[in-house]
């Protein structure tokens, strides 16, 4: 099999994105802790000075930060398995049952991430006010849901392909 230069690039990129994901996780965790340890300072810096009026917004923002933390292990589940798939492609044997299973787990994780994005977007809309508008890159995404569907289909294709290959290997 001819080795493509895309695979080493994908491998390095995925490694970097995995590291970045943990860094983002640490940053979100730090932010969450800061909202409790130095509430006044943190929320003022975020443009929402704590008061009885902004209290619901502060609770909503904390909820968004917590949901952001939940996204970190989900991202990791996707990236780690994608990396494992790339490694099997580099090894020259990608049509294995493990990859079909990995793709299925990726599809479920992507589904969870899309649901998380919907919830975050919903909270953002509820707590956003004309005085303090909240602009979040979250909510319904056509391409995101298409990716979920595509990954589920691809997992089935891989599972069927693996069975066909096993049959072919046992053909004399």
């Amino acid at each position, binding site marked *: 099999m001819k080795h493509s230069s895309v695979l080493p690039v994908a491998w390095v990129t995925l490694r970097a994105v995995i590291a970045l994901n943990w860094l983002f996780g640490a940053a979100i965790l730090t932010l969450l802790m800061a909202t409790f340890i130095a509430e006044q300072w943190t929320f003022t810096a975020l443009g929402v000075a704590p008061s009885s009026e902004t209290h619901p917004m502060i609770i909503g923002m904390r909820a968004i930060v917590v949901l952001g933390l939940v996204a970190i292990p989900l991202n990791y589940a996707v990236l780690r398995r994608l990396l494992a798939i790339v490694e099997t492609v580099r090894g020259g044997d990608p049509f294995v049952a493990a990859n079909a299973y990995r793709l299925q787990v990726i599809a479920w994780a992507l589904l969870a991430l899309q649901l998380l994005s919907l919830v975050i977007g919903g909270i953002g809309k509820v707590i956003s006010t004309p005085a303090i508008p909240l602009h979040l890159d979250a909510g319904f995404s056509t391409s995101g849901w298409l990716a979920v569907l595509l990954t589920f289909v691809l997992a089935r294709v891989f599972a069927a392909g693996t069975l066909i290959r*096993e*049959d072919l*290997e*046992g*053909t*004399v």
Partner: protein
Amino acid sequence: MAIVVKLDDLLHEHRMTLTELAKQIDITLANLSILKTGKARAIRFSTLEAICDVLGCQPGDLLEFHSDSRADKRSRAA
């Protein structure tokens, strides 16, 4: 397995080794060994034709169906 490959018997009848047959029908010894030991999932018509041609036999001489395996499966399912 319900289908039994009788390659061993045929080779014995023709006083031929698996290696000799493999050479004559141009199939690797490893693949032919898989067929002989009943580990193959499928057999190509071309392989069947080549074996029958060299051993002068019919496909039915090479393969045998054992219905007791089906009965075993049924009793296991029950």
